[in-house]
């Protein structure tokens, strides 16, 4: 009898959260979805049915195509840099360094700052100045003093892409992949400034995760490997890194969904950037909805963002629930 009451109570405890999420997440997503399929353009809501025409127009929109490219570039490099730096620092700190606590707090604190403040600070740091007139500002001042090449950072409209006339371009053309010789498949150099600022902010978090993971690998395992004659380097490569896989997965999920939705940082640093070089879907959505009053277009961008995040998250969720029920 007791257990039955407890069962009922346990479900009752969950019910408020379920209702809240049902309304505030799924209900609102439904609303956004409906708007994306409507004709709402202008400040008066017009929810008449329009079908998928907004999505068709969206994918043929030049700015949106650039946004997709920018998101992919940002995600790849942001994840790569944060994970590389975070893992590297975690391994360093795991060596039994003196003052580990201080370094750890130092690396972790950028996470506590809002993206807007980070954006403002890095906007100043990476303001390039105008080398033509000898006016240099920001980090370029230090780079120049050290005789290193300066960069135009986020004012650089250059997109590195495979030129159709180049050797590689012509090869691709021969095998029918000539669509790849297009700036939409290129690297916008300005984006790296955003990557830098975002990595500064989140690599401490990655470091904390990996450090916790490293501490969780028992010393005896490493001892055993050492007794068998393994060098430190090989211990890391063959034992420790594979054991950190679950953490890597968590990190990819957390950073991935931040990068797909990135907005505050871009708005504070460079906005859409020269020639949309730092434009991202969230920023496009914001502008088109609240400045241009194109609500249905904004909603379709939002749904697109949601779907792209789902593509990242859902496989992970399925995988983790499955491995858990196994254990």
């Amino acid at each position, binding site marked *: 009898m007791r257990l039955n009451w407890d069962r009922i109570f346990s479900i009752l405890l969950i019910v408020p959260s379920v209702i809240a999420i049902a309304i505030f997440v799924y209900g609102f997503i439904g609303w956004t979805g409906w708007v994306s399929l409507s004709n709402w353009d202008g400040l008066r809501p017009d929810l008449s049915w329009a079908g998928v025409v907004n999505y068709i127009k969206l994918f043929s929109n030049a700015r949106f195509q650039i946004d997709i490219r920018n998101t992919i570039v940002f995600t790849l490099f942001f994840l790569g840099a944060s994970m590389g730096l975070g893992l590297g620092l975690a391994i360093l700190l795991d060596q039994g360094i003196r003052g580990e606590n201080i370094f750890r707090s130092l690396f972790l604190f950028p996470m506590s700052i809002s993206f807007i403040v980070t954006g403002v600070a890095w906007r100043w740091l990476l303001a390039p100045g105008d080398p033509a007139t000898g*006016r240099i*500002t920001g980090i370029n001042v230090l780079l120049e003093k050290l005789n290193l090449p300066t960069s135009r950072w*986020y004012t650089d*409209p250059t997109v590195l892409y495979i030129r159709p006339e180049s050797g590689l371009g012509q090869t691709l053309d021969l095998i029918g992949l000539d669509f790849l010789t297009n700036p939409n498949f290129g690297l916008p150099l300005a984006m790296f400034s955003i990557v830098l600022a975002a990595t500064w902010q989140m690599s401490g978090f990655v470091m904390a995760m990996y450090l916790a993971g490293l501490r969780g690998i028992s010393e005896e395992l490493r001892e055993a490997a050492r007794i068998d004659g393994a060098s430190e380097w090989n211990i890391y490569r063959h034992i420790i890194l594979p054991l950190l896989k679950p953490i890597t997965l968590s990190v990819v999920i957390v950073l991935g969904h931040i990068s797909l939705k990135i907005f505050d940082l871009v708005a504070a640093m460079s906005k859409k950037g020269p020639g949309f070089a730092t434009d991202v879907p969230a920023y496009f959505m914001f502008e088109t909805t609240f400045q241009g009053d194109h609500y249905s277009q904004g909603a379709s961008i939002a749904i697109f963002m949601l779907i792209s995040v789902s593509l990242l998250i859902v496989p992970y969720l399925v995988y983790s629930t499955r491995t858990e029920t196994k254990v």
Partner: protein
Amino acid sequence: MSAKSIAFRLFILLGVLALILAACKPVPAPTPTTPPPPPAPKKLEIFSWWTTGGEAAGLLKMFDIYNAKFPDVEIINATVAGGAGFEAKVVLKTRMLGGDPPDSFQVHMGRELIDTWVVNDYMEPLDDLFKEEGWDKVFPPGVLEIVSYDGHYWSVPVNIHRANVLWYNTKVFADNGWTPPATFEEFFALAEQMKAKGITPLALGDVGIWASVHLFEVVLAGTLGPEKYNGLWTGETDWGGPEVKQALENMVKMLEYANADHSALSWDQANDLVIQGKAGMTIMGDWVDADNLAKKFADSGWAPPPGTQGVFIALSDTFGLPKGAPHPEQVKEWLRVAGSKEGQEAFNPVKGSICARNDCDAALFGPYLQSAMQDWAKDAIVPSLAHGAAASESWVTYINDVMTVFVTDLDVAKAQAGLLQACKDAEVCK
């Protein structure tokens, strides 16, 4: 552990939390213009993006005038910062769509007001108010035309800003024997001389792109002249025609003389370059005057940009009465203050703009503003593009997108096609 003791503990926990909430309840900070709450407080919520500096000070002065007449009304100064009110518009539109309009909100006169709010039936007409206050005699006809639609008046302009001003460093010019250029040819010739001396000819700070759109509207006005410029916004002037092409080509040359890091700077950081003597000129609205004063820059000179002598590109901040405003009577009184000589004379010298009325006392204003007032009385008045007067916000965002690409690739043909398409998308051109 019995359910009763659990419930008891939960109750205690909730009680403690409630006490924390009560202790942390935000205490309203006393502002200088808000009197202590009376028994049945009347309120007035004014929504704007005037958060700091002269703008905020001017707004507070108008609040003072209002409260002197109506001491029992509590004015809520709802502001959201951000250049040209981008963030503020998000909040405003969200509220209006959510059915919670503020009592009155700042809105740019012209198409921004009409196409966003009036056409969609969010505003009340103000014809009676205009008649009572005799404003149809005091505001210039150009302004009256821009705040009307469908035969009615929809908002009260508080100020006038001029968009087409060429600012320069008088000391640098004097040292080199330069004079401000009156035509595009003179501008480019002067630019060459500046370049030779290592001075950036044109300081531009267009993060967020609007400053480049601002520059473009000045070039458009200078190339096309006032009639054809006005025709762009009604569909009479052909966006695909040779004049627009010429304007785009002028723009290309101007951009080539601009600083390379313009997408990293805001307009005031570009003005810094002029102040420091690193750049020769900047083309920006007359809020530069306020910036110069704040930075105590004494060598500021101004002139009409090339081709726009006798042309006044105007933008204006106005207030209206939204439908469903919680306190319409208070709003009407506020609008009276906003449109009154007293109100505008209190606001504008501090804000750094000139009165929309043509009867303000010039002695109250600084030297630049006095010259602006003289020009205002005799120049041809045309609406600004970048600041919501000439085109609807929807159209402006299309143009912004075209300009974002144009400023980088300087492709005239592509930009002209884009501008023509933008006009069609805005349903003004066929």
